[in-house]
């Protein structure tokens, strides 16, 4: 370990959720104190629980795919800022072996970057030069079942290991120094529609991971595995055996959903509870509240997506925010946004833990979620209850018109609003930044029995190609629900956002542009044209006193943006 001071003007500090609660509104606390990495983090050769806990204030490393346990995607370094971002240039570009959809977020540990590609390749790179240290290619099983691209969203790290979920529904542990596989366990059966694209989340020696499969009639879950051995510790079924609920007629914003409750009740009596094939995948990272020992995550759509007659009831806990106890996996609370969804407008974008003002103006622990509906939902973390929802970030037209055989047109389309794209926050400004989609679609329904692991939509979604599509980045004041600024983009946005203490927001677009905005005003401050769609969440880190911003340029299967295979790191040109 060298003694050279790492990081820019904002280096290491403690900014956990509890301390954020104490400092809401004080922008300059995020600049932090400068300390020697060695004195605070030991030799930094391994990832300790302590290091993971301190990630929110660590401006050398990028330790979680969503930056920290709270998933704020707020990076505390401010070396790259509004005054100098125009000098941001490519430091290096790394070309991966697979040219396909790229939704990965690199993590960076003490100058080594760990990054994944489609089809479960993992690379360890020198984060300063982009030079490869090792490359691991997962030996994929013959059976994989996934829709929407062979994506992988990154690895998680603990001690000397990195962990990845695979398309064939396995959890793989690798030696972080060599890439050698240490163990490999089955998470679920891929033949029944289970697959993995999310990065795991690691806490207290447990590797937490959910599953894809909401389009295949799976029964969703979050599982906890022992990080040392791969042994299964607990399973939370995101679909309970009684999935009926309260027969809600309105969605979270109070809009009537045209449910035929009488027919559903009759179907329930005839068919029984549909929980075994009800879907409810959990395929984005969970936010971790270390103080309360809880994990917060969102649960995806019910199966089949469009045909609700075979799944009477509210279909709990699909389309919900859920909190579980980290030791047991027992449910603590939930909030369902859309009961008995027949539009696939589910809950996908990872939740964020941040202090928020409640209805009485008191600051409480809050949870933010960006919905495919195009609203930001603000919850009280203690009981998951909804405090408020934002102004709509995208156009709404005939929302909750029921799908028909011929196709009913509705906005938002089934991709959102906010798709899986992680939002970012700037707690000092009380703002959350969301990447949005405007993509008109028609919703077609067709009676479809369970097809045994095959794609089970119960109809079809069709993009209306002769209607204009676009996207936007929207900054929402989560203490009021008001939109502070909105910047329109030429194409629907998918990929995620990063905010930094340099007063910037970074986000990429399907046309290959990677942009930095003024986080207070939305003013475009910098951009770079890459060769493929920039549809991966950006990250940032420091090596030898220089701040880097890194992003994948590899396009997107869901939106069919130009594919590529580049990881691009940027830093300031000092000339």
């Amino acid at each position: 370990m060298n003694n050279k001071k790492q990081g820019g003007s904002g280096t290491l500090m403690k900014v956990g959720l509890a301390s954020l609660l104490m400092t809401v509104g004080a922008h300059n606390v995020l600049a932090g104190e400068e300390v020697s990495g060695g004195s605070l983090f030991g030799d930094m050769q391994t990832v300790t629980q302590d290091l993971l806990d301190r990630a929110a204030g660590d401006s050398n490393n990028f330790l979680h795919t969503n930056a920290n346990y709270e998933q704020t995607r707020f990076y505390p370094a401010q070396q790259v800022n509004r005054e100098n971002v125009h000098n941001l240039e490519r430091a290096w570009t790394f070309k991966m072996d697979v040219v396909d959809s790229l939704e990965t977020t690199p993590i960076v540990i003490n100058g080594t970057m760990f990054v994944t590609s489609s089809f479960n390749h993992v690379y360890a790179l020198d984060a300063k030069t982009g030079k490869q240290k090792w490359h691991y290619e997962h030996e994929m099983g013959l059976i994989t079942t996934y829709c929407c691209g062979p994506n992988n969203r990154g690895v998680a790290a603990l001690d000397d290991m990195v962990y990845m979920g695979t398309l064939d529904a396995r959890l793989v542990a690798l030696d972080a120094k060599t890439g050698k596989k240490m163990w490999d366990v089955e998470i679920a059966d891929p033949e029944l529609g289970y697959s993995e694209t999310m990065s795991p989340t690691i806490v207290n020696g447990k590797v937490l991971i959910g599953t894809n499969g909401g389009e295949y009639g799976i029964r969703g879950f979050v599982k906890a595995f022992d990080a040392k051995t791969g042994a299964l510790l607990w399973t939370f079924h995101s679909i309970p055996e009684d999935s009926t609920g309260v027969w809600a007629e309105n969605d979270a914003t109070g809009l009537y959903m045209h449910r035929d409750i009488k027919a559903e009740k009759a179907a329930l009596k005839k068919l029984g509870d549909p929980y075994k094939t009800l879907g409810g995948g959990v395929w984005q990272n969970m936010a971790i509240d270390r103080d309360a020992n809880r994990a917060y995550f969102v649960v995806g759509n019910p199966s089949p997506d469009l045909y609700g007659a075979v799944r009477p009831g509210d279909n709990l806990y699909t389309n919900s925010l859920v909190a579980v106890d980290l030791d047991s996996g027992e449910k603590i609370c939930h909030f369902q946004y859309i009961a008995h969804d027949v539009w696939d407008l589910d809950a996908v974008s990872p939740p964020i833990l941040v202090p928020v003002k409640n209805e009485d103006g008191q600051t409480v622990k809050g949870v933010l979620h960006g919905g495919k509906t195009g609203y930001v939902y603000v919850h009280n973390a203690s009981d998951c209850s909804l405090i408020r929802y934002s102004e709509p970030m995208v156009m709404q037209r005939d929302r909750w018109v029921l799908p028909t055989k011929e196709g009913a047109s509705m906005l938002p389309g089934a991709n959102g609003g906010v798709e899986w794209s992680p939002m970012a926050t700037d707690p000092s400004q009380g703002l959350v930044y969301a990447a949005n989609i405007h993509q008109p679609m028609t919703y077609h329904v067709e009676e479809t029995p369970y097809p045994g692991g095959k794609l089970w939509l119960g109809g079809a979604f069709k993009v209306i190609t002769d209607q204009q599509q676009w996207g936007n980045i929207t900054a929402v004041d989560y203490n009021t629900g008001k939109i502070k600024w909105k910047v329109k983009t030429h194409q629907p946005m998918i990929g995620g956002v990063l905010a930094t203490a340099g007063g910037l927001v970074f986000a990429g677009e399907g046309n290959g542009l990677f942009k930095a905005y003024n986080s207070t005003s939305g003013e475009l401050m910098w951009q770079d044209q890459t060769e493929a769609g920039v549809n991966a969440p950006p990250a940032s880190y420091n090596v030898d006193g220089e701040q880097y911003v890194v992003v994948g340029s590899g396009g997107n299967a869901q939106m069919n943006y130009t594919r590529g295979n580049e990881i691009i790191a940027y830093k300031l040109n000092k000339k």
Partner: protein
Amino acid sequence: MITSKSLLLMLTALMIFSNEVIAEAERAAPEASAEIGEQDKYASIRENLKTCFTCHGDNGQSKLGTFPILAGQEFYYMYVQLKDMKTGLRESQVMGPIVANIEKADLKLLAMFFSEQKWPETSYEINAKQSARGQRVIDEGGCTACHLATLKGNSRIPRLANQHPEYLKNTMHDFRNEVRNNAPAMASLLKTYTDEDIDAIANYLGSFKE
């Protein structure tokens, strides 16, 4: 002019090269002999394969427009199709009786055999206007989300790129007309398409090269 010195150098180089070739051959030899000694893993399906080749061409490299290319198609997709033909979920007057008496283990071997063969070079007569329209129709349906950007599929999802357009057209109509009932999401999607849309898709997919 070749001097005695340069001749000596050339001979030396040739000897070194020869030694390397021999050493390489020796390294390879044990593997090669082991292969000869190995049992033919496809022994149980060799007779079945002859039947397959009759319509699907040698090694599944079909040259007949109504019979799909199997060579290089995805293993798991083909295995599922064979199983579905056996159960009748995918109705086929030709294939149904053929697979009726083949055990699942051999169906798996058949799928494995064809997946290991090389997809042939193809050259179809393509209507360029239709093909251009086909790309848009494919965007409407979000086809690349599952069949991937190359439209070559993966595992459960079949390769469509440069498959015989005639076969593609027929099978899309079979989906739409509920003759092929083993992929309900495909059937639902194709019911939203017109005959012209299907022609356009078939032309577009036929325009791909290896």
